[in-house]
């Protein structure tokens, strides 16, 4: 501490008396922080500890007595460890196992024969030691006597401890380690492709004078409105063995890397386009004027002005896309074929093999690149802010017929790609039995006859999406307001901010799995939520918290910081200011948050797939399950239902916005 500060007179700093407003504000912030702790931090912690749970056979925990041939005279009791020290039948590596591991004992006795009259007695040395006779569970220190034939059926169960063994085991399983490489490779290829395509689109949309820009912008957002599985289904119908355009594949299979890459391009394109488009749209016209004054060629201007100007947007978009591809689970599940991806591994480990520990391991591995991407993105975002100055002049493109028509053709091509993918799903949903009976039929919309939850799942999805939109918007906006507009309480506010940013770095599957571990524990007082609609809503709000939070913060930051002091000096409670001023002024942002939450709640699969119950099946999960069961056409039909619903929601949102804004935002116009 410097000399000046030490000149501060001794004594204590006065503490601000809290007004009732401050108490309410801090209380609300604590409530929402508590929500984030319970809905995010605690489940992730449990997930981490689960990934460190290992199972190992403890040979000292069991004792065996063996009789002579008479079957009556038993020898001394010896621990299995001692027996194995002599027999050397069980290697140390065999002792490491999973939660459902079993260890047979006959190999401890070289001369074992199931026909012999020799009898065995077995017991645990502790009350926890467990073993099976056949499939009957025995526990504790009472002797269990079995004949030789039955002794064949005696197996030991492992004990639990904590360590990194699961990670070691994962990396030493070639197929699983391969999955990491596959995921990274697919992520990299898709990212390069998407960025190139999106950059071209963004360039055309921002730097040309082509026609129908608005229409193109609209079409490019279509992939956001459907679950990520739908492009997979579309690809099956387009390029599968009975596909419309099978010939285009030239003998290659769409199931596998090709399908994953095309599908990933489809569902990540809108996100990449949004980010790159933003970075291109803010370009400073003065740079272009300077380049023109220096008589730089178009090509040179592109590389020296355009690309550097957009580079932060490009890098940021690349990280977003890469993270989305490696953490997405729906698409590779549908179209991945035998191509193992990390995210699908979680599903296989947990749902297929009930191997929760290994699922937790894969989850922890998935978090690492996502968190790295998150931090790089944060750094880049900060730099980008510095790049823009208030004096920038917006760039206005000049007409150039050749270039404009080129852009138009390019955009048409991409739009055609997107609309074809949706169109083919529509087609598949409307025919009787692809490809053998193409008569139009609504048979595929009779969801009640299929696995997956039927029409009820569709209504559940709408209910879930509405609840998410309403409660999510309330929670997110209130939280953002408390963080942005409270004084003091710095530590609390930065902790809150950290928690609010965390969901961005947590893939949906990881969140879902963490929820299982956390909520499906009878000791947890919140256990009652498990299997309810509430947990789906909580999970979805948490999953999409960060973007909503940032939207709310941006809107709040545009509000004058002095509103709160003014209201306080006028002796008005903060809630009056909040409802009279803050809320009406931020209404456009609030509506944006709610539609964002609604659309994502309709399409999300990755987190809720672990959490839905029979009463709360969801349309997006039904798409997955119907496709999984081979009912591909009904899956496409359900995907289209989600699409129609999201379109309708968008239209309603637009109408409501227009009405509300005309009523509350008159002041915006002069």
């Amino acid at each position, binding site marked *: *501490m410097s000399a*000046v500060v030490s000149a501060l*007179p001794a004594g204590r700093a006065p503490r*601000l*008396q809290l007004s009732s407003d401050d108490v309410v504000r801090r209380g609300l912030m604590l409530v929402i922080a508590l929500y984030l702790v319970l809905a995010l931090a605690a489940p992730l912690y449990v997930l981490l500890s689960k990934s460190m749970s290992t199972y190992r056979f403890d040979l000292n925990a069991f004792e065996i007595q063996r009789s002579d041939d008479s079957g009556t005279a038993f020898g001394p009791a010896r621990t299995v460890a001692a027996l194995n020290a002599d027999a050397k039948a069980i290697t140390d590596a065999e002792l490491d196992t999973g939660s459902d591991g079993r260890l047979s004992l006959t190999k401890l006795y070289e001369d074992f024969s199931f026909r012999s009259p020799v009898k065995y007695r077995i017991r645990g040395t502790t009350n926890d030691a467990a073993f099976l006779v056949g499939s009957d569970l025995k526990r504790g220190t009472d002797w269990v006597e079995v004949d030789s034939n039955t002794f064949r059926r005696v197996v030991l169960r492992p004990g639990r401890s904590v360590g990194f063994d699961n990670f070691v085991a994962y990396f030493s399983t070639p197929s699983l380690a391969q999955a990491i490489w596959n995921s990274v490779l697919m992520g990299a290829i898709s990212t390069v492709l998407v960025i190139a395509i999106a950059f071209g689109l963004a360039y055309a949309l921002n730097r040309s004078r082509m026609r129908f820009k608005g229409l193109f912008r609209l079409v490019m957002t279509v992939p956001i409105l459907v679950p990520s599985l739908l492009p997979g289904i579309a690809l099956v119908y387009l390029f599968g063995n009975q596909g419309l355009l099978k010939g285009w594949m030239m003998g290659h299979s769409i199931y596998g890397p090709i399908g994953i890459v095309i599908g990933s391009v489809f569902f990540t394109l809108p996100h990449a386009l949004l980010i790159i488009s933003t970075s291109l749209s803010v370009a400073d016209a003065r740079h272009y004027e300077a380049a023109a004054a220096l008589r730089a060629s178009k090509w040179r201007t592109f590389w020296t002005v355009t690309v550097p100007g957009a580079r932060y947007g490009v890098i940021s978009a690349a990280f977003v896309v890469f993270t989305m591809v490696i953490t997405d689970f729906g698409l590779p599940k549908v179209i991945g074929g035998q191509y193992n991806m990390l995210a699908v591994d979680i599903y296989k480990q947990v749902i297929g093999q009930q191997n929760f520990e290994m699922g937790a391991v894969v989850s922890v591995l998935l978090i690492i690149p996502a968190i790295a991407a998150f931090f790089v993105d944060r750094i880049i975002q900060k730099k980008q802010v510095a790049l823009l100055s208030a004096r920038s002049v917006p760039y206005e493109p000049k007409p150039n017929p050749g270039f404009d028509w080129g852009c138009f053709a390019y955009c048409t091509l991409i739009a055609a790609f997107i609309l074809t993918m949706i169109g083919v799903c529509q087609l598949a949903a409307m025919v009787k039995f692809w490809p053998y009976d193409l008569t139009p039929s609504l048979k595929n919309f009779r969801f009640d006859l299929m696995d997956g939850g039927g029409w009820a799942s569709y209504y559940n999805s709408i209910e879930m999406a509405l609840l998410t939109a309403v409660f999510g918007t309330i929670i997110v906006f209130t939280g953002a307001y408390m963080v942005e507009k409270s004084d003091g309480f710095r530590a609390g506010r930065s902790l809150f901010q950290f928690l609010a940013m965390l969901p961005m770095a947590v893939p949906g599957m990881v969140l879902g799995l963490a929820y299982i571990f956390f909520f499906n524990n009878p000791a947890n007082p919140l256990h009652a939520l498990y299997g309810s609609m509430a947990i789906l809503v909580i999970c979805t709000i948490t999953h999409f918290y960060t973007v909503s939070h940032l939207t709310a913060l941006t809107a709040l930051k545009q509000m004058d910081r002095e*509103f709160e002091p003014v209201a306080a*000096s*006028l002796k008005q409670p903060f809630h009056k200011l909040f409802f009279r001023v803050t809320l*009406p002024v931020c209404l456009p942002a609030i509506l944006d948050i709610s539609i964002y939450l609604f659309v994502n709640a309709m399409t999300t699969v990755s987190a809720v797939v672990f959490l839905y119950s029979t009463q709360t099946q969801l349309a997006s999960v039904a798409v997955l399950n119907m496709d999984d069961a081979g009912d591909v056409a009904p899956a496409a039909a359900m995907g289209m239902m989600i699409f129609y619903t999201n379109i309708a929601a968008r239209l309603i949102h637009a109408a409501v916005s227009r009405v509300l804004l005309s009523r509350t935002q008159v002041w915006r116009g002069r």
Partner: protein
Amino acid sequence: MKHETVTGAAAAPMHFEPQAAPKPGYLVIDQLWKVFGDFVALKGVSLDIREGEFVCFLGPSGCGKTTLLRAIAGLDLQSRGSIRQAGRDISSLPPSKRDYGIVFQSYALFPNLTIEKNIAFGLENARRPKQEIQARVAELLALVGLSEQAKKYPAQLSGGQQQRIALARAMAVSPGLLLLDEPLSALDAKVRVHLRHEIKELQRKLGVTTIMVTHDQEEALSMADRIVVMNHGVIEQIGTPTEIYRHPSTLFVADFIGETNQFPARMIRNDTVGLAGTELACASCEVAAGSDVNAVIRPVDIIPHALDGREDIKTPQNLIDVTVTEMEFLGGFWRCRLSSPRLGERVLIADFSINAVRRLGIEKGGAMRAELPQNRVLVFPKAA
């Protein structure tokens, strides 16, 4: 950091004791400190403001004036020290428990509420009848002369009108103290001059104790009853505008308020100071002979004479024959650069009235005689 404030008279204590009102002041600030991390924004500031007074906090940016205002408002709590308002200790009260109205540089008008709703915002509570609120709003609108604009939204008004609405809103609840945080700096020059006058008029009419923060000396000089000049977190001087201007107690104040010529010098006697090539009589001060000082004179205080002029010379020993090396017409006066062997390399800047220039025939390259009146030659010890 050591700070000596030495004037011609005794070293002035920082704590200002008004002679006229011996009773305790309305707002008493005692030994206020504010620390942000390693940065000390206020260093033991003490101040006493009388009821009904218009006080300006003046200083360059980062001097602590806004911090002091925010401490008074309860928006940034001080690290040490106490504040009393109307006999009540408000040191640790939250803003809503204090008694003030505030106007910010941004006005902070609620954009979605009409002008009248903005003004009524602080008046609305359960107990107050609607008619009473309406009457009060009408009264305030009339006071700031914007009665016709009641139904408009802030964005539909000019900056100056918005400023007046913000003032009306702050005054609606009749606070005991009005705080103005650079209220005029977002306006263009003409409106600013006009509003200066209006605010001062309003304040006088309502008699509300007012504190205004500004970095604009002209604003402070024209509006304030008293000015508090601050620098580096301490109060350099407190006084009426004329006191501050005529008798700056520190070199900083002299330099910050108005313009100065500064010469490094050495004290010879308590009323004589030695420059590089000459000696000057100066306002008497108690700086020890032989110590290094800065001799200061304002350009406007320099009196021009013809070379042979003999009339009206008050300080004959401070007459310097100079050559006019440069003349710049600044509208209301001529700014002249004067040089003389007696001043060495240094140039003396003097502002002469158009009248004087015409009368004495001063022109570029010409010779003249400049008088530096003894009581206008101020001496400040060099900072240690």
